[in-house]
Each structure stands twice: as C-alpha cells, then as structure tokens.
C-alpha cells in the first residue's frame, strides 16, 4: 500500500477464525518488530504493516522478514480465551435519539431492540475511524438498520450506534451517520492510560442496560 506500508491479506470472511488469525499475525509482528516497522494495523481480513522507507535495507528483505513472522503465526494462533469487556449503556431518551426509528425500521418495539442489542455478544474486528472506535461484529440480523441519509455533524462521545450490520461506540465526539440508540458513561479512549483505547481487536463485548440515574452516578 503506497511506499511506506505493506498489506498482508489473511482472509475475506468476517468470522472467528479470520479474526483469530489476524490478531495472531498482528501480535507476532508487534513482538518481533522487523527493522523499520513503525505501525501495525489489524482490521477484518488484513494486517497492514507501516515502515519507514529510510530505515529498511530493501523492500524485498522487509517483505521476506514479514512473511517469515506471519506465516507460522497464521497457522498456530493461540486458542486463548479473549477478554470480555462490559459496556454499560443507557438506551433511548436523550441518549438514544434514533431508538424509535430503529424500532420502526425493524418492526420491533423499543424494548425489544434494547433486549436484542444487550443480549448479544460482540467481537471487536477493528479499531479505527476515530481514536478507540470499535467496529463490532455480531449484531443480531434483525437489528440491521441502514445508516442515516444525512450524517449528524456532531455525535456526542459515548454514543452507541447501529450502522447496517455493525454496531459501535463513538469514543470521542465526531460527525457520524450511525443510528444512535444509547450512550455509555464508560470512557473508551483514555489519554493517560496505556493503551489509551479501552477495546482492542479480538475483545468480546457485552452491553448492559443502565438507567439514567446509574448513568449520572457513573464514575
């Protein structure tokens, strides 16, 4: 990809096996860090490795070094249980202005949307778009709702949204086109922690409904 990054294609499916292989390859490259590597971006079926062209002896050598690390990692990914992160969400009301339209689109009641959304378990397939923003797979098919025709210029931090077959949380205020169904008081991007992103690729995520009172009292 350009003259300062190389893409390792792992697979085309959005499933557990691909996710495990992508995570394993990213971790292996991060651990071994061939000379010149500056950044590693795992996402869905690929791992993109950024390098400093001034620090590599040749592109061929870098590509060979990456292959040497990636090939075994792809085959022997660990079966370790990923961690589960619970995200408290106050659904509806001022925090979820699109809960009603998601219900209308899906033919469910607002209560059923909340039950389905908080009843499922999700996996982080990528972090991107904005700092700490998780692309979550595992949205129940019945909740699939197309993005809004016109994106909002400012989505508040913590907003939980549905965009087609994906759900996610906006860690920082930003423009956004997803349907907002609730908001979490939990910070997904913490500048003074390491790593600052609460969620990382491979994590399991559960949403737990909370009341406006619990939201206000969250520390």
């Amino acid at each position, binding site marked *: 990809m350009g003259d300062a990054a190389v893409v390792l294609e792992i697979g085309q499916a959005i499933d557990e096996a691909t996710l495990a292989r992508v995570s394993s390859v990213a971790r292996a490259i991060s651990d071994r860090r061939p000379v010149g590597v500056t950044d590693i971006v795992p996402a869905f079926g690929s791992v993109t490795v950024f390098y400093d062209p001034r620090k590599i002896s040749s592109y061929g050598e870098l590509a060979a070094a990456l292959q040497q690390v990636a090939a075994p990692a792809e085959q022997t990914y660990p079966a370790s249980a990923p961690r589960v992160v619970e995200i408290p969400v106050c659904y509806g009301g001022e925090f979820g202005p699109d809960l009603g339209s998601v219900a209308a689109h899906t033919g469910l009641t607002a209560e059923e949307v909340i039950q389905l959304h908080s009843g499922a378990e999700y996996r982080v397939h990528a972090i*991107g*778009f904005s700092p700490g923003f998780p692309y979550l797979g595992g949205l129940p098919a019945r909740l699939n709702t197309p993005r809004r025709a016109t994106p909002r210029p400012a989505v508040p931090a913590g907003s939980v949204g549905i965009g087609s077959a994906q759900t996610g949380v906006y860690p920082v205020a930003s423009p956004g086109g997803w349907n907002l169904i609730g908001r979490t008081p939990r910070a997904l991007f913490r500048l003074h922690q390491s790593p600052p992103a609460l969620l990382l690729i491979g994590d399991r995520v559960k949403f737990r409904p909370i009341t406006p009172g619990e939201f206000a009292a969250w520390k």
Partner: protein
Amino acid sequence: MEIKVIRAGPMTTVQDAGRPGHRAEGVPAGGAADLFALRLANLLVGNPEDAAVLECTLAGPTLEFAEDTTIAVGGADFAGVPAWQPVVVRAGGRLALGPCHHGCRGYVAIAGGVEVPVVLGSRSTFLRAHLGGHEGRALRDGDRLEAGAWVLPHEVKHWRVDPHVLPPYSNEPTLRILRGAQWNDFDADWAAAEFTVTPVSDRMGIRLAGPKLVRRRGRELLSSAVAPGTVQVPPDGQPILLLADGQTIGGYPRIAHVIGVDLPLAAQLRPGAKVHFAEVTLDEAHRLWRQQERTLAILRQGLAEKLR
C-alpha cells in the same frame, strides 16, 4: 520564553513529526502535513528536525516574542517575512505574517521549539480528538505559548536556502503515484485526467473534483488501513487524497497512493489548484526517499557549519 498570540490566523496549530505507533488504536500519525518543510524550517533555526512548530493555513499569525529569538518560515510563503531563511526577532518585537502567496500551509519554526505537553509521544495537535498541541485545539487570539529560548550565535540574515533543493512546490503539480489495490477496478485512463482541489479540504484529506470515477468491477470491500497519500474513491466518484490526520482505516476503494516525497506537494494544495498524476514504481519511490534524505543530510551538514 513566552510568545503572545496577538492574532491566531485562520487555522494555526502546533505540529511536530507526528505520533506513529498508535494506528491500531485508531490514532493517525498526524504531525506536519508537509514534513519536508517542518524538518528544514527547524534546521534553519538550529532545532532538531522534529521539534514542534506552528502550522499555519492560508494565512499566518501575528506573534509577539518576550525575548530575542530566531524564527524561520518554510512551506507556504507569507506576506511579511522571507521564506526559508533564519530571521532574528528582538525582545518585544512582533512577527506579523499575512496571507500565503503560494501554497497552503506555512511552518513557523522558533528556536528552541514550541513547548506543549507530549501526548502519546508527540506534541502534534489532533483536532478531531481534541488531543495534543495547545489544549487540543487550534490557536486563538490571546493565547500564550512557551518556546525554548536561544539566539543563533552569528548574524544569519544574509543567507537563505537554495531553492533548487526544495520540493517542486506548484499550484499545478504532478503527483507521483503507486497503484492502489483497486486500480484495476477503474478505467485505466483515469490518471491522465486533471483534477481540481475543492474547498472541502483539511488536514484529514483533500477532496478533488474531476471526471466521475466509476468502479467497473470488484467485490465488496472490507475496511482496512489507509494512510496519508491514499487516494480513495467514495460512491460519488470524486477522489479524496488523505493527508496527515486521515482516518486509520477505511472502506472505500483505493485507486492509488501518492508517494512519500510528493506528500509535501499535496500538503501545499489550496482550493482551485490543478492536480495531475503520474505512475512510478515502488523502487523509484524508495530511491526518491533516499535522494531526499541525502539532500536533507547535506543541508543539515551545511547549516551545522554556518550555525556553529
């Protein structure tokens, strides 16, 4: 040393060489959009190449310095001060930068570097996340900044950088590109067309206007990493050229990638500029990187002798 921001200008931010290493958390490397200008402007005032400077968009600020200092302006050139040479500013003196004559982003390096807290390894401002720089935002009238204080030991105003060593900055540049993953999904002659820079352009990316690019074939794409220089094509067929604060992953087809040594040219594109593309090979792109490093190494050497 204190610097008073008398007038901030339309969009002035603190930037350094950026914060690579955090893309997996959704944080782009950021930093100066024109890294060549950042590096050379810093060298001109005796700073490390990656010291924090002020990146000023389309017009510059008016600054008041509490002590004698030396500054240098690179990248876009402003009314009010000569570019690419050290300029001594006296205690209490003001530096008033007007509109850019050429280019889009000027870099004001100040001897000692702009002192703001280091966030995730960098002093750069990442506006979208309100992170880094001066309080995570663009400068405002009345802000006060700190910079290291030293004055270059010799009278420096009688020399300047030979313009031949600069990137070929232009309002009608040809940007050299490598093929993107979806290059073949588009008609082969797209790169021969002329594109115009639209006003919907910022540090995230430049929206270009030109013939509508239609994806003829190819399967649905999974989102994956993108980078400064990536040219992606959204459904409206008008390409977006990503810059320093571009998002870390994207799902649009990538038709091409502007090579690293031409990113300074991209960073200097202002609305209305005309852009052409020319394909090169990866080997050529890497050779050009090395050549640029040699140029900077020679300048570094020469300046070190002058500034000794």
